[in-house]
């Protein structure tokens, strides 16, 4: 090997090494070094030839690369226009279908329910607003905002943020902060009222106690024996309300027994609910069993989604019932609309309004029961849903809704969405992590809800988890779209692929028998991909590790070697 000795004058240099020749040709050596080389090659024909050959090699490379001027592919020539046109088409269709879907949803479900609930005495509120907007988070808002308005606001906010983000170019963090602010502003109650919180194995509002304000009770056993001048929120295994509550009772309990006096409503999500006391207003029940004892009294209406319902007491107004087995033995001031498997009306029953029942079997009505009119019975039809044309219309609407949701997400978080889609190709990791987070997050969120501090976090997490169920399908849909139309990492072509993929995924998830399983696997898979993307975002060194090779690219050079005009250490 011929090393270069820098101390020697040019005419005494040994032959130049190839690296030095190349750096000289490329003008990467410092001036002094360059002059030495020039001086050397004047007297060394071999090195002169090498330098010339390398220079010709450089020219040949440049020429070869510049020649063969391939014309710009038509796909690229029309790229901008096509992208713009195609997105206009997708936007138009998706927004149109989404608007149709919202309208159809309102007229098909919300409006009839609202009408039924009006008849049932719920005073103009619809079921969703009862569920959501009359809860603790919505005090003061319920008369102002309806669910559709909020959905519209959030959708517009999403598009607005996406637009604003493109304008401001300050990154997704800014948009997310704003979006988070909007969500928090929408969820947080306008003014926090004074409230009392109690926790423990056994939690009690004593008989002689009088609490002004809302009460939050967390415990294995909860007893409300005193007076609460506000709402009562119960999270418990075994709860009894035997005192006086001037507001509503909202309960999440395995077993709830109400023997006291409730001036407001009961909204309960329990296994068993027994009422032997008085409820002045309405019941909204999502329970396994509901027993309204003969001593029990409900002044307003009952809306019930229960497996088994026994109504021996008095109800002042209408009943709206969905359940397997419904038994009526008490007095009902209004009418009954029921849907279930069986309906039994006993001898002691009194119903002052019309009765409509849709079920599998004809109702058993005692001849001694006092009814305003005979039961209007409709046998429930269980024809295959695939024979109904409306199913397909709804599928199209759902697909459009998914595409719309995907558009908002891809615009708000393009980087994150791309990463999630890329992670979906790591099948093993996505699947494994998907199972973990799909089942783990709700459990963790529910545990978090047990504490007051964690309640908001838990509810928010559950909300995000629920949205991720849909996002997961979008991620997998996008990947499927890429399989069909080719890869891309840019947002708009990716959205186009997402739209195609969503349609394919929706079709697959509606295949008879296999469809639900496909949907489950799609959700698990997509969930895992999202979780991987989140994990990588949180991983502190992943970005650097992705760019810098882990191995050194070159072993140390001899100390006298110069590269790029600088001596290497």
């Amino acid at each position, binding site marked *: 090997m011929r090393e270069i000795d820098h101390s020697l004058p040019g005419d005494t240099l040994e032959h130049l090494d190839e690296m030095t020749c190349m750096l000289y040709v490329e003008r990467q050596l410092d001036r002094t070094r360059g002059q030495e080389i020039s001086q050397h090659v004047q007297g060394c024909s071999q090195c002169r030839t090498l330098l010339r050959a390398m220079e010709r090699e450089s020219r040949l490379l440049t020429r*070869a690369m510049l020649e063969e001027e391939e014309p710009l592919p038509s796909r690229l020539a029309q790229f*901008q226009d096509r992208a713009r046109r195609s997105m206009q088409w997708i936007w138009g269709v998706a927004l149109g279908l989404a608007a149709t879907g919202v309208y159809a949803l309102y007229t098909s479900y919300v409006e009839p329910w609202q009408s039924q609930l009006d008849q049932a005495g719920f005073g103009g509120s619809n079921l969703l607003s009862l569920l959501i907007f009359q809860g603790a988070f919505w005090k003061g808002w319920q008369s102002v905002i309806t669910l559709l308005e909020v959905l519209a606001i959030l959708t517009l906010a999403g598009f607005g943020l996406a637009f604003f983000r493109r304008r401001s170019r300050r990154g997704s963090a800014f948009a997310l902060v704003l979006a988070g602010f909007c969500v928090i502003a929408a969820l947080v109650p306008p003014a926090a009222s004074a409230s009392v919180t109690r926790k423990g194995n056994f939690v009690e509002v004593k008989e002689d106690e009088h609490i002004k304000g809302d009460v939050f009770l967390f415990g294995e056993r909860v007893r409300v024996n005193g007076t609460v001048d506000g709402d009562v929120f119960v999270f418990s295994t075994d709860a009894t309300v035997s005192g006086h509550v001037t507001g509503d009772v909202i309960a999440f309990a395995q077993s709830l027994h109400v023997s006291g006096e409730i001036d407001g409503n009961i909204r309960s999500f329990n296994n068993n609910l027994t009422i032997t006391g008085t409820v002045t207003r309405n019941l909204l029940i999502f329970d396994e069993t509901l027993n309204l004892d003969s001593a029990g009294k409900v002044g307003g209406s009952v809306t019930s989604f229960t497996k088994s319902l026994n109504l021996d007491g008095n109800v002042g107004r209408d009943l709206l019932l969905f359940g397997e087995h419904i038994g009526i033995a008490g007095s009902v001031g209004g009418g009954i609309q029921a849907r279930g498997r069986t309906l039994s009306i006993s001898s002691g029953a009194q119903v002052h309004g019309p009765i409509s029942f849709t079920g599998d079997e004809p109702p058993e009505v005692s001849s001694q029961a006092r009814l305003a009119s005979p039961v209007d019975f409709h046998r429930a039809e269980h024809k295959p849903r695939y024979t109904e044309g409306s199913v397909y219309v709804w599928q199209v609407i759902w697909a459009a809704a998914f595409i719309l949701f995907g558009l908002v997400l891809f615009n708000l978080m393009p980087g994150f969405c791309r990463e999630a889609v890329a992670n979906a190709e790591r099948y093993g990791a996505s699947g494994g992590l998907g199972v973990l987070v799909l089942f783990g997050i709700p459990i963790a969120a529910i545990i978090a809800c047990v504490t007051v501090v964690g309640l908001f976090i838990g509810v928010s997490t559950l909300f995000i988890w629920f949205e991720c169920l849909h996002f997961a399908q979008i991620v997998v849909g996008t990947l499927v779209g890429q399989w069909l139309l080719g890869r891309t990492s840019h947002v708009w072509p990716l959205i186009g692929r997402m739209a195609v993929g969503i349609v394919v995924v929706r079709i697959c998830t509606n295949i008879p028998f296999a469809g639900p399983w496909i949907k489950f696997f799609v959700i698990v898979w997509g969930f895992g991909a999202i979780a991987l993307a989140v994990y990588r975002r949180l991983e502190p060194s992943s970005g650097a590790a992705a760019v810098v090779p882990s191995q050194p*690219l070159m072993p140390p050079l001899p100390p006298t070697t110069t590269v790029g005009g600088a001596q290497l250490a």
Partner: protein
Amino acid sequence: MEAHRPDRMSSPGKVEPTEIVARARAGDAEAWGELYRQYAGPIFRFCRRALPTREDAEDATMEIFMKLREKLIQYDQTRSFSAWLYKVAANHCWDMLRRRKIRQDKETDDLENVPLEHPDPNQLDRLIEQKTSEEVRHALDKLGARARMALVMRYYSDMSYDEIADALGVRRAFVGVVLLRARHELRQALGATGALAAGGAS
């Protein structure tokens, strides 16, 4: 002694599109279209040389321009727009190759044989004399990703050693090594044997 470097991006004497860039930054769709029309061809050819397939090059070109739209605000207008655009393109292509794990581990190993030898100048001269541009292009397709990328960055888009180091994620001092190793690979692909392809005669 400097190799001839034709202007890859524009016709001779053409000035930097400062005004168009400024308008595009301000959101002018026409200016953006003009930028695209002017630079889509050169960038596509850059990608065509750097990436394995034509489809990859088409995808990459579109992605680079969409990325450009987002990054244009970061462009320092006191510097050459073409140089900056090539840097964006090089980063994107290399990132694309890296993500697909096309980079071969052996490329790292190759660098351990630091080429400090003196090849036979006449043999090299004959090789260069005999080979046509088309043969060189075919040979380029056979190179490893890093070697091809380095050659394209240097001899197509005239990027500096610093820019190449930045794009490839290597130290500046190693760029010469990468380029020389790439030349050796190329000579080998062109049919050179023995010392010329292996790094020179001992």
